[in-house]
């Protein structure tokens, strides 16, 4: 993955989100060691301090835990935490924006629901 320079979020947040996705996709299991700040810095050509900030963010959210001298590891219920966080924050914000745009365009609730169902249905095929 290459960082998106159009993305206005600070790099350390983009790093945290990327690592969350890696965990969700099963690339890292519970209690498995993740990349060090230097490995992340190399992968994305970013300052190691920025990489460390991204990892620390995940420690604060209890998705990673530190073992002194050994590195950072995935917590037991990291996946559930990430899913909950994404639903409560990311998805909720998307829905707020979606509803606001629908109101601006005068799209009714039924119409909006149909649009959502169509997208979901189309995916299921």
């Amino acid at each position, binding site marked *: 993955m290459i*960082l998106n*320079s159009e993305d*206005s*979020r*600070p*790099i*350390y947040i983009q790093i945290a989100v990327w690592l969350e996705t890696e965990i969700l996709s099963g690339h890292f299991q519970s209690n498995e060691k993740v990349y060090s700040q*230097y490995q992340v*810095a*190399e992968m*994305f*050509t*970013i*300052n*190691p*301090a*920025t990489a460390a*900030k991204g990892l620390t963010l995940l420690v604060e959210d209890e998705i990673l835990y530190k073992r002194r001298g050994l590195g950072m590891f995935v917590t037991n219920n990291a996946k559930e935490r990430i899913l909950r966080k994404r639903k409560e924050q990311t998805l909720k914000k998307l829905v707020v924006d979606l509803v*606001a745009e629908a109101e*601006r365009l005068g799209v009714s609730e039924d119409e909006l629901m149909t649009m959502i169902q169509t997208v979901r249905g189309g995916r299921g095929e």
Partner: protein
Amino acid sequence: MPVIKCKDLTKHYSRKRALDGFSCMIEENKMTGIIGRNGAGKTTLLKILAGFFQENSGDVNVFGENPFNSLNVSANSIMIDQDMTLPTILKLGEIIEEANRFYPNFDRELAFRLLSYFSLDEKTYVTELSKGMRSTFHSIIGLSARCALTIFDEPTLGMDAGVRKDFYRALLKEFIAYPRTVLFSSHHLEEIEDLLEDVLIVHKGRNHLHLSLDEMKTYAIAVQGSKSMMSEWVGEKEVLFTKEIGGSTYTVVKNNLSADEREVLRMLDLTVSAVSATDLFVYLTNESKGGIDDVFRRDDKG
């Protein structure tokens, strides 16, 4: 521990004040971007830190001493720029051998490997190099010297996009493997911002703003909406930049809005967007709030 300390530093040339009460502190093993408009005083500052120029007044301290006439600073620092003086009677390979003799941590093998990667022939002379190749050669010396204080003043002038990209990556790899204090001045902030931890904005010979890159990315926000709505909303707020686009106004303000103020924005149907580090830098160092457009707005002034 700070490696560099400057206090009320001034330096003037016959008529111009290049540095005018400059103060700053830079921590060890950080990579800091030194940015500023043309003539802001960046090069003067860097040359004083490297010990090339002497200040007129104020205090400057590098590794605990004044860098001017200091052998200690000279052996532990290197300044790379376009007009580095290198012997014209030596071949590139011979220059590397000499640099290897002078700098205690110089990695000779790395220097030769980089030379061959960038297709520079060790048997040629600096006078035979194009502008971009010369910049590349200087940067190779700068990276290989592994000096505790490494200063790059516009190192990428003339380099093509591919070489610049490779150079940034080489710098990062070197920085990770052998941490050192790096000062990097460039007009391409958008190209180097990911590499940097901190940014120091030099403006009119002073330290205008010194902050981390993450802080810089969230320092300001842009608000856009209809003219009337916007003028009401802006009110007394400090405006960093403003521009009219058709019937709407685009205004950049400091990002210190409360949750209530953000709710107001939503209700007024004003759109909020982020301001990139490069754009913020330009807004902060512009002479007027309207930028170049103000020059062409003669009719308004009557």
